[in-house]
């Protein structure tokens, strides 16, 4: 069965109780926190694989907590939101979340999202592609998912890394939105264009010398994305 350490950050005790009981029964190790501050504190002490983060919390809200977690950690984050509104979803992803689930959710749905978020691409990028990218001034360290562009170093989250790997392995080919979503997030996905928009933007900020004028991650209007890898 699945294993992994999950931190549940939610201000509602009943939800924390239900999550703890249910996720533990599904072989996850669960720790919980009552608010953003406590969550950040607990995150510092132990290695977690995933954070379930409530969006609406008193004090430091979910989005702010997410941003703070992201500033120091690449742990996977799923946001739990009440609102189904586009702007809240995009807000969550923009703050650095990997996925979101709308409350109230069914447990099988949440478990599927957790599996999809923790799911890794089987293959890291090829050495030849990494070398060609390095000759363009972009160096990627596979073990630490660290990326260096013109002396500026940043870390990629697992999902960002997978998205980059998938595009890089198929460089100079247009990959459709659906194919990308299903490959990187899982077979249950396919229409979540907002995920790609946000994640490609996040990647561009880390990999492109000038994110407003992308030279690697090219948008193919209405179709998908293409990784342009110049010949060295």
């Amino acid at each position, binding site marked *: 069965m699945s294993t992994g350490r999950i931190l549940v950050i939610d201000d509602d005790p009943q939800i924390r109780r*239900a999550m703890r009981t249910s996720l533990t029964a599904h072989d996850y190790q669960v720790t919980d926190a009552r608010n953003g501050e406590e969550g950040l504190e607990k995150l510092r002490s132990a290695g977690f694989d995933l954070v379930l983060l409530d969006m609406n919390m008193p004090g430091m809200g979910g989005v702010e907590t997410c941003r703070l977690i992201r500033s120091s950690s690449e742990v996977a984050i799923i946001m739990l939101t009440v609102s189904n509104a586009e702007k809240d979803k995009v807000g969550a992803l923009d703050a650095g979340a990997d996925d979101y689930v709308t*409350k109230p959710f*069914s*447990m099988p749905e949440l478990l599927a999202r957790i599996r999809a978020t923790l799911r890794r691409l089987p293959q890291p990028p090829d050495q030849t592609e990494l070398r060609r990218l390095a000759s363009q001034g972009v160096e990627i360290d596979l073990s630490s998912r660290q990326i260096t562009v013109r002396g500026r170093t940043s870390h990629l989250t697992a999902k960002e890394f997978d998205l980059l790997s998938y595009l890089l392995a198929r460089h100079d080919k247009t990959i459709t939105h659906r194919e990308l979503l299903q490959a990187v997030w899982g077979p249950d996905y396919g*229409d979540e264009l907002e995920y790609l928009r946000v994640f490609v933007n996040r990647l561009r900020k880390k990999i492109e010398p000038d994110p407003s004028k992308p030279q690697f991650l090219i948008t193919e209007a209405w179709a998908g994305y293409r990784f342009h890898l110049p010949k060295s």
Partner: protein
Amino acid sequence: MTQISGSGLSERRFLSRLFLKQVLPSSGRIIAALSLIAAITFVFYRLLHVNATTTGLCYLVAILIIATSGGLIESTIASLAAMLCLNYFFLPPIGTLTIADPENWVALFAFLVTSLTASQLSARAKRRTKEAVDRQYEIERLYSLSRALLLTDATKPMPKQVVQQIAQAFEFPAVILYDRHRDEIHHAGEEDMPELEERLRQVALRSTVFLDSERGLTITPVRLGGRPIGSLAIRGSSLSDAALQSLLNLVAIGLERALSQEAVNRAEVARQSEELKSTLLDAIAHEFKTPLTSIKAVTTDLLSDPSHDLPRHQRELITIAAEGTDRLSRLVTDAIQLARIEGGKFTLHREIHFPSSLVSAALRQMKSLIDGREITVSAPDDLPAVWVDAELIQMVITHLLENGLKYSPSGSPISINARSSEGRVLICVTDQGPGIAEDEQSRIFDKFYRGKGEQNLKGTGMGLAIAREIMDAHGEQIWVVSKEGEGSEFCFSLPLARQGGSE
């Protein structure tokens, strides 16, 4: 009283009349001028005996003084008097108005011309000076007024402040302003002139100037870009034409500024109240959904895990709880959606979208409900793009789909069909349910209306009302075609992007 149209000319005539009135010499000043001439005559005739030339020069000096301190009329009268005195007292034969030596005729005539010219010149110079001083005064007043109008207190009505500032800056005894937009009259100054209100309205309406010289009253229209926006009555005005025009322009700008400020304030209040409502509804949604979340997580987990090996009756009971949770959750969602969009007071976030992607996004949201139902979708990718709020249109599709799923037998197919029709895109959801009786068809879009029959209790009675509110906000239609026993087709229209996008 005179009513004159063709305002420019009449304003000038009125002002020149006022000017004349002001400079008309008082009899006191004439007497003073004549006394001065008499005094000189007395001194030179009785006390100092000097020749006529010296006396004439002294007269000239006196006339210059009179012309500088008085006006043209005083100095002209003084010139004539001096000429007569010179002739009578100093030119031989003395004591008569006749002159013996023809040379003296020339001298006397030269004296008269010189004194008249001198008085005219100095009077003109004096008038110029006075005019310059007046203009400077007017400019200073106008400047202080424009400053005051810029610094008006936003919490008090602007027109009221405008009249007060005018009365204060120019020290007019009475100023009345008629604001045509609000149809209000504002007074400043000592007296109230109720009978003038009708006059003010007429002046603004006809854009003509009204003069009442007896009371020193002018009523002029206030125009902005040629359009009369009010009228201004001033009592005791001595303003030049140009200054009056500048004053009217300032008033026009002030009134216009007040109007635009009001519009901004109204928009701000509306925005804040929409924001407040939205925040409040978010909080309510959160409070209701939090307990529902834990119930749903628990029930779905129990039902999903075969290893729990639940006895059948327990599984049934938990299923009932799970269904109740879903229903309650839907009720909360629908009630909040309805509250959010009711009355059309919300902002549409229109963008260009393709009908096929709207349909597939709606289907994705419904994934869990669709399970096991046959849904045929016909939404060609080459349909023209539409100009809509995607989130709301998806909501319409999901409500129609939910309706179809709820009110048709569980094995029956449902179809979604998007097509182009008469410059719009139509999206229709068709089911093969029992259909809707004709007398009910007009009422199903009403809030909380639910069809007769037990299966209708599953609905919240809000879905179709929400759908209609959303379509109303887009300025589009939603309707149903249904026949009892043959199923129903719900359709709505969407505007094409090319029309809307160019707005």
